[in-house]
């Protein structure tokens, strides 16, 4: 039954005609990949690279224009049903029925796949053990948290052992703990049932766990091979540097990124990890000392992400430096002051209850002007609730909440004038143009006449939207939409910018660009409050707060958080390890406490 290769795509091409815009988009162009049996294969690449299209072609939900897609030895174009009988597929939105309970969703898929009654009991038991959903079998799927939905979606694809499992970005918007659990399930099944899996992801650490990785970009395969082979392309090019005590890692990172010979730079564990181009390293890298100043760089072993960035940079030359330069010079018309100790957000004993459920429990923290402040926590930890209260979208049950000098419980309208808010879904009007969106939001913030025109010009140049004024917002690519959303949030030159999971589902390249803008904004004096599921992004923050079950578990600089998690000089953590460590310590302690109390 098991052929050595589960899927073969040969020269696959697929294009879409967008009628409204009157143009064709090439989703896939001459893509050839193989998925080996009994192993994990990852599909990585930026937004719009063609990952979803490739998975849909494999599932027989689309027909390729050119080339052949062969799944389990069957041509997907001629007999998709034969393939669909034998594989499983989890689309990005999981495909669950919200009105049906966990058990009913499972039963539906078991019936559709014709799983005999006598083997179901055992299979269900196993799935429930792995997913830890056993306690919730009668709960409607719509009432599950994001992480649990994702696990149920996976369980539904596993009601019988499929010959190939296709997963489309299964971990978007899911917290690190749930993400880790999902991957543990996958690896267990690959080991025990020889499951073959093709999974698309924007997390490089997930791709690194696979046997084979294919990097897609603009519909083409940029590179593929084992994670090690891709990683090794960055051999000898990776370094780490510790910034001087008086400089935040992100400043040094920004300087590194602004240099043309830097492939990538990220703050990591208090240091800055960076990759230089091979050409410059071979010449002895004469410019590096100038960029680094007093600090010394030490060579580092490469990671998969370094290899990925190297592959992408060979295709994409995004000029981050110019974007950042514009951002700093024309920013929010405030004096470019570095952060001060003056706090712009003060939260004391904040409580929010929904019925008898306490979503946020006596939370206190303060944020200083010009600071980048991160809210982290697993799904359902209360960070969205906290976030909404800070933006004045949700009244607090008790406690004090001061934003930009206004008591949010009394002068919400005044406080809102000082706040810019960019929601996760980018609240834009898709059928209005960029200019029309900006004019509308400007009007909503009370801007008009010359002031509105000035501000529109400023944010458009700040976010490189000058040439896109007449483009319809709904037809813009994802990265553009995000820039437009941020531009609308900054139109009224607010003191504080709130960003709710702005990088969810974005690839590393887009996220670098995004963070370069954010750090430039903070330089210019705008305070930024942000939520994210990418723990390494916490490294960009001056301080972060980690919440779980409504309580603050940790508050401090990234370095302080790592130390709280138990980091020593001998044993270093990255932020994700620190995060998981702190949340699990706390959950164990509270469970132990509960047991003692009982």
């Amino acid at each position, binding site marked *: 039954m098991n052929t050595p290769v589960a899927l073969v795509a040969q020269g696959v091409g697929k294009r*879409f005609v967008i009628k409204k815009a009157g143009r064709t988009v090439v989703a896939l162009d001459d893509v050839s990949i193989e998925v080996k049996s009994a192993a994990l294969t990852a599909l990585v690449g930026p937004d719009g690279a063609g990952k979803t299209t490739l998975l849909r072609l494999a599932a027989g939900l689309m027909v390729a224009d050119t080339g052949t897609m062969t799944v389990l030895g069957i041509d997907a174009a001629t007999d998709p049903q034969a393939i*669909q009988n034998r*594989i499983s*597929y989890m689309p990005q939105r*999981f495909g669950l*029925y919200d009105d049906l309970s966990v058990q009913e969703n499972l039963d539906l898929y078991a019936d*559709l796949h014709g799983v005999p009654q006598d083997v179901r009991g055992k299979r269900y038991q196993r799935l429930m053990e792995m997913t830890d959903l056993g306690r919730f079998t009668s709960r409607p799927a719509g009432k599950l948290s994001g992480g649990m939905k994702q696990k149920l979606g996976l369980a*539904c694809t596993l009601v019988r052992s499929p010959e190939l499992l296709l997963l489309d970005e299964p971990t978007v918007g899911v917290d690190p703990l749930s993400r880790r659990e999902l991957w543990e399930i996958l690896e267990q099944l690959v080991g025990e049932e020889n499951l073959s899996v093709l999974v698309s992801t924007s997390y490089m650490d997930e791709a690194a766990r696979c046997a084979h990785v294919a990097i897609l970009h603009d519909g083409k395969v940029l590179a593929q091979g084992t994670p090690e082979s891709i990683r090794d392309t960055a051999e000898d090019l990776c370094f780490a540097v510790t910034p001087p005590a008086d400089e935040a890692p992100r400043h040094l990172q920004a300087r590194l990124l602004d240099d043309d010979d830097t492939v990538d730079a990220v703050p990591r564990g208090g240091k800055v990890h960076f990759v230089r181009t091979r050409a410059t390293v071979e010449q002895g890298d004469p410019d590096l000392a100038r960029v680094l100043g007093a600090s010394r760089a030490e060579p580092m072993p490469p990671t998969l992400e370094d290899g990925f960035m190297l592959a992408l940079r060979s295709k994409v030359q995004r000029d981050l430096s110019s974007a950042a330069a514009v951002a700093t010079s024309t920013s929010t018309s405030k004096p470019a002051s570095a952060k001060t100790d003056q706090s712009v957000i003060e939260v004391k004993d904040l409580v929010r209850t929904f019925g008898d459920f306490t979503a946020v429990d006596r939370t206190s923290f303060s944020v200083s002007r010009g600071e980048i402040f991160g809210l982290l926590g697993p799904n359902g930890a209360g960070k969205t609730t906290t976030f909404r209260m800070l933006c004045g979208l949700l009244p607090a049950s008790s406690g004090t909440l001061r934003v930009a000098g206004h008591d949010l419980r009394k002068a919400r309208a005044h406080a809102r004038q000082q706040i810019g808010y960019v929601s996760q879904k980018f609240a834009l009007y898709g059928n209005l143009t960029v200019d029309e969106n900006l004019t509308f939001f400007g009007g909503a913030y009370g801007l008009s006449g010359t002031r509105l025109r000035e501000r529109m010009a400023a944010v458009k140049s700040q976010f490189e939207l000058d040439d896109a004024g007449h483009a319809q917002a709904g037809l813009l690519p994802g990265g553009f939409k995000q820039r437009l959303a941020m531009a609308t949030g900054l139109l009224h030159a607010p003191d504080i910018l709130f960003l709710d999971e702005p990088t969810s589902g974005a690839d590393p390249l887009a996220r670098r660009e995004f963070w370069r803008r954010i750090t430039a904004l903070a330089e210019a004096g705008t305070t930024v409050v942000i939520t994210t599921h990418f723990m390494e992004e916490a490294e960009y923050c001056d301080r972060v707060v980690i919440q779980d079950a409504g309580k603050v578990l940790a508050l401090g600089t990234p370095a302080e958080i790592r130390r709280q998690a138990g980091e020593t000089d001998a044993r270093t953590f990255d932020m994700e390890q620190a995060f998981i460590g702190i949340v699990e310590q706390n959950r164990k302690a509270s469970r132990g406490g509960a047991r003692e109390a009982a």
Partner: protein
Amino acid sequence: MNGGFWQRLLALTRKEVKQLLRDRSNLMMGIALPAVLILIFGYGLSFDVKNAPVAVVMEDHSVTANDMIAGLRLSPYLAPRVVNSMHDAEALMLDRKVDAILRLPSDFSRRLGLGDAHAQLILHGADANTARTIEGYVQSALAQSTVLQGDRSGASPGASVGSVYLEQRLWFNEANTSTWFLVPGLIVLITTLVGAFLTALVMAREWERGTLEALFVTPVRPLEILLAKIIPYFGVGMIGLLMCLLAARFLFDVPIYGSLWLILLVSVFYLFVALGIGLLISAVTKNQFTASQLALVTSFMPALMLSGFIYDLRNMPLAVEAVGRILPATHYMEVLKSLFLAGNLWPVILKNCVILIGYAVVVLAAARMKTRKLIG
């Protein structure tokens, strides 16, 4: 068809029924809305005129004239209100306190004796239908009084010179109650609402929410997905139909001259047409909002306006009439009305049934063609 067909169909149908019962908005639209429509159309909306206020200007104070007015008072359809002058009557008419003015001139009774009496009737024409109805009521009330007058004066009816007594009979709706023809129309509307509108909505929801994408990559066949949608909503449609039939019989006392079984049979045919339209619309639009708009415009509104429910097709401009004639709802309406009020007229039944079956086959086949396991 492979062996798992029944198992999959059963699983999908069970899922559909559960969703239907749990989603309150579906139940509201499938059961509560038809009930509300029945009450609105049965009690609220009616083209009958009852107790229409009529100003009576008495310029003749004779006994004869007073008898005449008494005759008007006896009519359940009119509420005469005697005023002193034409001026007062006009004021009432302008305020729309009365719908008509009846003026009996000073020489009314004298000329009545001569068989040449004139009375003036002025009608408020803003609502032409009501005006015409009142005209009829006043005329017949006056005529009746005249005949009585003649009887009383001892003369034979034929002797009342020059007056012709018109004996009126309304066939098929003897009482001329509008609920009689509204109820069959209501059945058409409710069947369309559940079949086309609700089904289009729930199917488009599956496309929109991406649940079909996951469902497609299983052994399930498109036909099974469609059948699983048709079965429960067919049931909801039949419940709506039964509610209408019960209301017709026991609430509004509408007679059913034709066979109840035939009514059920043609309704089944039409329900399949409506379900097919709903499924076809959702398969083409794949979007709840567009699907609901399209279902409203292409099935519900035409069933209301162009099927001969409210407006007689023959009074419409030719082009509009032609559109109306094409609609399956019109054929259903025609056969239902005749079954309710005229009995088993086989030529009408056969012709319309054949047309409805033809429509059902075409739209269901088109829905099947358009529902393919493809995304985008």
